[in-house]
């Protein structure tokens, strides 16, 4: 089998333990470590600086959202999903709302569909901005983090104005959106696009073009397209390897079939390809927003739904493309007001599983860079 080294399961033992016969060094990265962006715990077996094995230990912030949702009604459970992948909270909510709508067979008004897509794309940009800054910080450059936050703050302000919150908005409800957009929304988004266009070249100057950065990223952590699919990777991780998997293209939802955009594909499969995919995806999101921002149709922002939602008996699955990859919401209904079982197929969980595969044989510094390019959000993995 591909697992060469025996790894101790118990984290506390492995801290004090070095396997004596092989001379390997076992170190714990996390649960409290600056590079894990949360409470991920990796047990790394090292030979010198070279990584022999990476073993993730999860569950430090597992809240059992799937179990919680079993006792929440179809209106209530959506707010919890914001807490999964908090950086693309809107898209999580959207996927859940879509799944409930699929069960109810509600037609969502055009206006609500467009607003949802706008919000989802803004969320995607905000998420990628944060990733970009954190990625540079993982490599030791602090300044880009703050520069990325300048643009991200603008998006957060837009969200705050329309949805009433900056991170966990709970804006999508079954049947549409909770409130109509704020009167200033369109102007603010246009201002943001202008700001973004003005500042985007700085990203290349500071990070992308930098020779140190390129040397750190190129040819590191190579993931083949076949492996990416086999490991269930999705989103920019798979697209960086050339595996086309954009849910927005193949299984369009809401207004995505009405807009023109390209699926960003890179064939390198290394960290740099994954980096480029995300940077270029921001550009595509801007394109989508530009197409829609002046064409928000008039009408209702929410379809008429009953006060108490009851899904018919059956199973409903909805895919959505979050900033990290493909999110699946799988609702099994027994006909009541609460789901019988709900499963969230989180993109981060599958993307993390590939880390051990691509990190083998790399240096510690590379592992950190790879974790950056996988864009791990720990609550998304732990749910």
């Amino acid at each position: 089998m591909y697992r060469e080294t025996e790894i101790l399961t118990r984290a506390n033992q492995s801290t004090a333990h070095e396997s004596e016969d092989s001379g390997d060094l076992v170190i714990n990265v996390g649960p409290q470590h600056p590079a894990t962006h949360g409470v991920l715990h990796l047990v790394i077996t090292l030979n010198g600086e070279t990584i022999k094995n990476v073993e993730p230990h999860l569950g430090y912030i597992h809240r059992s959202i799937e179990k919680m949702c079993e006792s929440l009604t179809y209106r209530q459970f959506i707010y919890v999903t914001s807490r999964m992948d908090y950086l693309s909270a809107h898209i999580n909510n959207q996927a859940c709302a879509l799944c409930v709508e699929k069960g109810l067979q509600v037609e969502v008004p055009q206006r609500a569909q467009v607003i949802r897509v706008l919000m989802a794309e803004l969320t995607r940009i905000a998420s990628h901005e944060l990733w970009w800054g954190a990625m540079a910080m993982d490599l030791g450059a602090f300044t880009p983090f703050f520069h990325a936050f300048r643009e991200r703050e603008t998006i957060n302000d837009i969200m705050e104005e329309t949805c009433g919150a900056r991170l966990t908005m709970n804006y999508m409800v079954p049947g549409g959106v909770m409130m109509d957009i704020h009167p200033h929304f369109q102007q603010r988004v246009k201002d943001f696009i202008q700001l973004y266009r003005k500042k985007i070249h700085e990203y290349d100057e500071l990070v992308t073009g930098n020779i140190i950065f390129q040397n750190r990223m190129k040819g590191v952590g190579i993931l083949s397209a076949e492996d990416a699919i086999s490991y269930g990777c999705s989103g920019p991780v798979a697209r960086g390897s050339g595996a086309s998997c954009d849910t927005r293209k193949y299984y369009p939802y809401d207004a995505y079939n009405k807009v023109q955009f390209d699926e960003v594909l890179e064939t390198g499969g290394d960290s740099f390809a994954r980096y480029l995919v995300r940077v270029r995806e921001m550009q595509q999101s801007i394109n989508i927003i530009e197409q829609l921002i002046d064409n928000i149709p008039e009408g209702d922002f929410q379809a008429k739904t009953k006060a108490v939602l009851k899904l018919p008996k059956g199973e409903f699955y909805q895919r959505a493309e979050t900033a990290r990859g493909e999110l699946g919401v799988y609702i099994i209904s027994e006909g009541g007001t609460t789901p019988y079982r709900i499963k969230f197929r989180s993109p981060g969980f599958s993307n993390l599983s590939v880390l051990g595969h691509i990190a083998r044989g790399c240096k510690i510094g590379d592992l950190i860079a790879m974790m950056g390019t996988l864009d791990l959000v720990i609550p998304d993995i732990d749910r």
Partner: protein
Amino acid sequence: MLNEALKQKVSELLPTTAFDEGGEWLNINIEATDWPAFAQHLRNDGSLFFDYLFCLTCVDWKTHLTMVYHLSSTKHRHNMVIKIKLDRDKPEIETASGIWRTAEFHEREVFEMFGVNFINHPDLRLLILPDGWEGKNPLRKDFEDPVNMIKL
């Protein structure tokens, strides 16, 4: 491939398959013993080519457990759902991690959350639950935790 064609192809491969109507994708019910060979076929058959296991989970129906595999093909872009009924007291099934690598992590999650034993899994250990977890499997319906309340 459309659902009808898929249905025909699957019934050729495995005549004992039962089909579930309704739902957007083809739902099939098979026996746990047929699973390993059938999975190999699904993955390797050129016209099926289900190479992307995008969701793997389990459902506790109080009388039995059901493994649910959501499969998709990145070549043909068709989807299929496979359900396998398991005994609730002694749930056992062959692992799919040799065919789809993503199953390794997902099966570990199902193992600790539902107590399903995956035969020949390379590394069947607790992934999310704390080490030394004893007692019931959290996502089963009869699980109650008086200390960390989940129900409101």
